């Protein structure tokens, strides 16, 4: 599997592996200042290269309540 699953809230996206997280977010139109990314429960920085078959979970950080 050459793709990576990216999950934000209940929305799932698919991108090609081998991209940096930064490039993947840009491709998906997700503002990198508005999210944090985790890989298997650990925070990762946006220079990380996305691995085939993995799932990256994004945490939305903006609150307004």
């Amino acid at each position: 599997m050459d793709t990576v699953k990216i999950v934000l809230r209940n929305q799932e996206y698919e991108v090609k592996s081998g991209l940096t997280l930064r490039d993947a977010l840009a491709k998906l139109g997700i503002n990198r200042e508005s999210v944090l990314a985790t890989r298997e429960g650990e925070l990762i920085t946006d220079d990380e290269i996305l691995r085939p078959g993995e799932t990256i979970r994004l945490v939305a950080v903006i609150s307004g309540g």
Partner: protein
Amino acid sequence: MKCRKCGKKAVINMRQHKLALCAEHFPLWMVEQTQRFIEKYRMFTPADRVLVAVSGGKDSLSLWDILWQLGYAADGVYIALGIDGGIGYSQKSQQSCEKFAAQRNLKLIVVDAPQQIGLTIPELAAITQRGKNKPCSVCGLAKRHILDQIAREGKYDVLATGHNLDDEAAVLFGNTLNWNVGYLYRQSPVLPARHAGLVRKVKPLCRFYEREMAAYALVRGIDYIYEECPHAVGSTTIYYKTLLNQLEVDRPGAKLSFYLAFLQAKEKGLFAQPPVNGEEEVGAAGEHLRTCPSCGGPTTVEGLCAFCRMVEKVKVG
């Protein structure tokens, strides 16, 4: 990316500081910086009794965690607002606060607003029709009133809230767009007590990005409520934050500069103090602050304060 302090794998890159830190050094840095801001803005001292307003969200619980680590005498207060939104919002957020306090053996005061008022906040908003069918205006009024009351009755020296840089920048942005000079003059990391019924209000997290606060909570394993208040959807605050984050992507540090430069400009006298009518206790626009005969809190009008008038209206109803 490597941690600047130890070279291990970084968990966050703070572009506005050109600083990446690992899971060990990032929370330490946050705690150190918070202490630095507490001292810089003379927020409170170790001798002060601090009341932390907690909502169950990442900012307020992280603040309470940081103050606990720094050894401050900090109790928490949670206000149950009776908001469900199909997700049990108030219930979940209260559980987050209670779990947090129990894990650290901290004192949490829980105020049941519906019990006190007789209605939930959404019900109160519907009846009073204050705030264009959204309960946010009523919610803000109720929270401020209750927090002031608890701080006053508990004889706390200061009330601390978890407002972060993104919150402050969004408010600043909105007030600048509309040139709300009175509010611009008043916006500050510290709000002195302007009336006997008020305590000093401080925002120790005002220079941290919201993203940093979320990362801190995750790294520290703080179980906070991820869901947004159901009534916050589509709010102006969230819209402004989104706009400012778009700016930040292209101009790292723009949000921080915007806020810090504003504080510096204020210090240099950019905003004239609203005219004071000679009284010591004045409101944001220089109006005389009176005392509400019902709750003892401040009011700008003769008689009951806005909150007590609202509750009275509902009871008479």
